[in-house]
């Protein structure tokens, strides 16, 4: 690999580091790479080393940011839970009513007082389903 190409490769890989790291080590790191290449170290191995270092640098939490990151994660989780609960809540009673009705009928024997639901029309609202007395018996 010719010199301009290796320089470009190292430069590209160094751009993977966070800006804070590049401000501190960027120029020195590029110079170090040039010196190592001059000594005979393959450019590809230098690029891999810098790439792995950039990944580690991005994945390692900074001591100051750790608490903030945890707080953000907790807040995001709480928002997600709240949103899911809000979406599921209106659907739950309707589903419960539709599933409980056939099961109650199937369990009862013929002749026994059927504790099925009676539908009382509520004025101006959705229908209310009330189970009649006897629903606590075995049938």
């Amino acid at each position: 690999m010719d010199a301009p190409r290796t320089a470009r490769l190292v430069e590209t890989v160094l751009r993977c580091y966070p800006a804070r790291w590049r401000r501190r080590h960027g120029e020195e790191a590029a110079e170090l790479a040039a010196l190592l290449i001059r000594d005979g170290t393959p450019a590809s191995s230098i690029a891999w080393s810098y790439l792995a270092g950039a990944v580690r640098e991005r994945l390692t939490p900074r001591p100051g940011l750790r608490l903030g990151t945890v707080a953000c994660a907790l807040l995001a989780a709480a928002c997600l839970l709240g949103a899911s609960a809000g979406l599921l809540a209106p659907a739950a009673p309707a589903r419960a009513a539709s599933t409980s009705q056939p099961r109650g009928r199937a369990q009862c024997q013929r002749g026994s007082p059927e504790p099925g639901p009676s539908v009382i029309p509520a004025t101006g609202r959705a229908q209310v389903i009330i189970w009649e007395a006897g629903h606590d018996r075995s049938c």
Partner: protein
Amino acid sequence: MIVGRRDGRAGQDVLRRAGEASVLILISLAGGPRHGYALIQDIRELAGVELGPGTLYGALDRLERLGLIESLPAEDRRHPYRITAPGAAALRVHLDSLERVSAAGRLRLRLGGI
């Protein structure tokens, strides 16, 4: 990396989980301040280990955060690093620990007749 104390006082081997690169860098800096390229060359001669530049800067940042080394004013574009007093103490504790393990290993080999 979990470290008990920043100052590397007696008994605390803060370098136990620091990795080979960090220990080699401290050993190299124990001989005097050095910048990145000089560290790589010295470690190559000292231990026969080819330290990658990415590994080197990661270890330097970690050691500096722990207060075991400090960077000196830049010369040209290079930042020389120097071992601090807590760094020297931590290195001493770690090397003592390695010596104990090494001695125990040699003794067992001798007793086992291997």
